[in-house]
């Protein structure tokens, strides 16, 4: 490459590089950048938005959980109250506090345990409040009133015990005779069958 040609190429490269880097912006670049910055500053940042979204969702979750919990609690209380009323009714009819199958809320309140959580009521399996409402009997099987014949017999024994004893003995002997006769007859039948 001759020095003259190199100088020309050098000058041309200077000009070319100057023009190459001469990128002029469209008019109003500064205004557009400032407007964009202002709009960004007026908007809440992504972080702030995230915090608000997180706070709102947490609040909604807390409200939902607490409402569900309160609903279930009130339902349980209603069921418990209904059961207690039934039990209290049965206890009233029985009139005995010692045989109480469960501790009621009312009795707890009366006994002065204020502020304590009521103990959980344990209801035995197969326990029927209707059956519990019937008075419990002292003797099993339950005594029944005597029939007419039994009454007459009781009166006879009470009035003439000696005759009753004699009658009973005669009755027993007769019973024995009958049993003997039955056994004799049955053995006789057996022997006849064997002979045949």
């Amino acid at each position: 490459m001759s020095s003259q040609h190199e100088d020309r190429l050098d000058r041309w490269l200077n000009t070319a590089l100057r023009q190459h880097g001469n990128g002029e912006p469209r008019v109003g670049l500064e205004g557009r950048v400032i407007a964009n910055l202002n709009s960004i500053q007026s908007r809440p940042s992504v972080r702030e938005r995230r915090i608000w979204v997180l706070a709102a969702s947490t609040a909604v979750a807390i409200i939902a959980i607490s409402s569900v919990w309160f609903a279930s609690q009130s339902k349980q209380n209603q069921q418990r109250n209904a059961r207690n009323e039934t039990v209290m009714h049965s206890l009233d009819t029985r009139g005995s506090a010692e045989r109480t199958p469960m501790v009621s809320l009312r009795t707890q309140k009366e006994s002065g345990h204020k502020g304590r959580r009521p103990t959980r009521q344990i209801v035995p399996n197969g326990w029927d409040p209707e059956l519990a409402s019937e008075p419990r009997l002292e003797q099993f099987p339950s005594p029944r009133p005597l029939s007419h014949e039994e009454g007459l017999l009781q009166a006879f024994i009470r009035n003439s015990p000696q005759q009753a004893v004699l009658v009973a003995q005669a009755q027993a002997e007769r019973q024995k005779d009958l049993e003997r006769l039955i056994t004799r007859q049955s053995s006789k039948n057996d022997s006849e069958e064997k002979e045949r």
Partner: protein
Amino acid sequence: MTEAVISNGAISLAGVKEDGLEAAVRDHARLVYRIAYSVLRNHHDAEDATQETFMRVLRYRRKLEGIDDPKTWLARVAWRVAVERGKKQPDVSLNEQETGKALSELRAQLASAEESLLGQEMSALLESLISKLPESLHDAIRLSTVGELAPGEIARVLGTTESSVRSRVFRARQILKEKLAALEVRK
């Protein structure tokens, strides 16, 4: 007034209010744009990169304690933004017809003593030659084409010394001249 706000000694961009930021935009938006354009070679992309550069300034203004040289600092931010965006762009390549047109333009311009405007094909050919240079060289020569940056400022943007920048620019120009001469002779 704005120049005083921005470049008067150790300015604290962290404490700069909106007026200060606006002043920085007014004073340095053109420089930021030209740096972006030197890399991206597209007006639309260069403007987007300018917007992004000032958005970064806005985002980090509270973290920055003090900036000694806001012009160079902004140039550095703009350079990084442009290079990040430029990585996503396809490489410049010319077909045979475009190359032929560019070379005939080059020959005509070299033959003529007058300074003439660079055509589209010739500009694309030059960009293609610059982009094929080693990274350290094409960074230096691109920033040197932005007329508003002195070699010392280019050195601060690239994180090197001024003499290194001068040396890189000189080497880059030598390589470009050799390639252009070879192309001129070939056709």
